[in-house]
């Protein structure tokens, strides 16, 4: 391939910004995304995993409640991978900007925040910087029981003790897809050629993954990102977590329930009163 075409290819690549939309009305909290992620990304497991604060998870499912008494109670499950924030100004992601050794980095050609285990030296500044707690630290050496190391995925490098890890949007699948494209002399990568493990595994079809910059991709229509304003969603009922901090996540959520959307960000007391008032109109569907 000549230099010009390579340049063209890169230009066209630069425009990519991968993102995720999770439909909270569809999510049932089954946990498939978590398991699929573990088995795809060689995430270690310990004999006792009940201490969630030292447990390594690339995607966690939170259980939200409207805190009303029985039987007005409502719950909603919220899966949370790494938000792959674009940051205040592009690339100034909370974690990326603080890493002293560029072990984590924002790639403006994919919008993905990378984490390199062989570079990370475990200062955990990025974990402190991340308001979503999306990052986990390898407090101990991972141990796979006799024989189980056979199921490790060669496309993802197992981590050593003392480094930070997090969701990579299954970037290795993008590498895989690009490999194939290179081999076949193509440049474009089809939407279905690069899907994350959690997206693929969700039985409820609650997760949509794709290129936010590509009008052809479903997520673009479902979110309608305002790319001038860090990709703020224009679509009704679509929101992002902690929008006010200006982290500009690439992970979007949607729900028709007001109280759920309110859970997505912090509000001052007076604001809360208004919103809960607005939220209550949804309670009548309860017997």
């Amino acid at each position, binding site marked *: 391939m000549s230099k010009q075409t390579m340049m063209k290819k890169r230009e066209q690549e630069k425009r990519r910004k991968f993102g995720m939309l999770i439909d909270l009305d569809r999510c049932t909290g089954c946990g498939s995304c978590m398991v699929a992620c573990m088995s795809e990304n060689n995430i270690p497991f310990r004999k006792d995993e009940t201490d969630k604060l030292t447990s390594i998870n690339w995607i966690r499912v939170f259980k939200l409640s409207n805190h009303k008494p029985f039987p007005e109670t409502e719950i909603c499950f919220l899966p949370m991978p790494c938000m792959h924030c674009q940051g205040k100004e592009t690339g100034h992601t909370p974690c990326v900007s603080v890493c002293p050794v560029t072990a984590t980095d924002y790639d403006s050609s994919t919008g993905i925040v990378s984490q390199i285990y062989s570079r990370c*030296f475990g200062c955990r500044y990025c974990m402190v910087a991340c308001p*979503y707690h999306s990052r986990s630290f390898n407090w101990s050496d991972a141990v796979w029981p006799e024989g189980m190391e056979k199921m490790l995925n060669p496309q993802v490098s197992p981590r050593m003790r003392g480094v930070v890890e997090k969701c990579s949007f299954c970037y290795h699948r993008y590498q895989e897809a690009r490999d194939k494209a290179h081999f076949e002399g193509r440049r474009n990568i089809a939407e279905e050629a690069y899907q994350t493990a959690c997206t693929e595994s969700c039985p409820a079809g609650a997760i949509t993954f794709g290129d936010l910059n590509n009008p052809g991709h479903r997520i673009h229509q479902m979110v309608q990102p305002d790319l001038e304003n860090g990709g703020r969603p224009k679509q009704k009922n679509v929101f992002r977590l902690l929008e006010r901090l200006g982290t500009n996540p690439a992970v979007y959520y949607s729900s028709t329930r007001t109280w759920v959307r309110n859970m997505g960000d912090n509000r001052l007391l007076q604001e809360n009163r208004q919103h809960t008032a607005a939220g209550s109109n949804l309670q009548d569907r309860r017997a």
Partner: protein
Amino acid sequence: MDTTSGTGRLNHCSPRRFYLQLLPVFVLLTWGIYAMIRVWALGLNQTHMNNVYGFALWIWADLAIIALGGGAFFTGLLRYILGKKELTAIINFAVLVGVICYGSAMLILALDVGQPLRFWFIYWHANVHSMLTEVAFCLTVYFVILNIEFLPVLLENPKLRRIPFLKHLGHNTHAIMGLFAGIGVFLSFFHQGSLGGMTGVLYGRPFAYREGVLIWPWTFFLYTWSAAAAGPCFTLLTMKLTELVSGRKLVPDRVVDLLARIAGWMILSYTVAKTIDTVYWAGTTTVAAGFSWTRFYSENALFHGYWILVLEIIVCGLVPGLILVSEKGRIKKGLLFLSVVLVVVGICINRWTLVMQTVAMPVLPFEKWSLYLPSWQEVATTLIPLCSGIILVALSYRYLVLFPEENQLN
């Protein structure tokens, strides 16, 4: 005995007695070193840190120690650059305290990283956008400078003076000490600041985040300022303790008074600045993030309550400040040293909240506060600076001339 120490001191206890007195400290130190080895060998699972408490006791200790070590650069500034000659009586000691603090700080940093063998990445693969990089660089360079500053004091030791090379070295370094002090001040300004910057730039953490000028958040300047205030206080405090232990007067009152007065003005002005910062932060910065500042102090009031603000700003800021700037206050030595202690405590609390509360408090509305209790390994290792500090001061006091005017005073 006298010959062993060249300090011209007459009543000098026997080495046996000297080291016996230090024995408990050595024991404690050994415990710390044992813990240190465990951490390096077995990894950070030896601590009680977790994915929420990425920073904990150690980072706090670092921030506090470096702030307290600030006495070296600030006294240096006053002595060599603003030419306050009388401070010669305490500058050596200030530098020693600095060396100890910075040495310990670097040791703790080396403990705190998950991959100690990759420590040099921070220099070689430095990301200039990171405050931590700035800290690492300034810290290292300044540590070297401090050692150079301390060298002449070391070379005062008559045994070493016998070697002409070292003798000349000593003299020449003395001559250019001003230059080093200058560089030291410059570096300190930055790394003390960057330490404040470390939490100040975290725009994902409304409790810690501050606006500022250029790349520097307000905490950047507040940290330098508070270090300049607390450093001298800590120097005075340790000096006082040495006096108590040795039972000898080491520094003339006028020097103490001078240093205390300056420190007083610093802490007072700092308190004002800190108050302005807090008010602005509470009224503007946090509101933009959707937090009413009361949330930070009411949701987990027992551990992170309003009491912190009162204690930090009024009890440990305003009060000692007023005492130290007033002639009457300084006359009463008891009162003077009480306020010195308060300032030191205040700075430690300030660093504690900015590290601990920042991570303890959830940012997502549906997450909970989390609390943390350090493991014995963390505590033990954090005691290393204290122990090594005591030992080094004792040794230096015995074998070196820390207080030039000591003999006139006794």
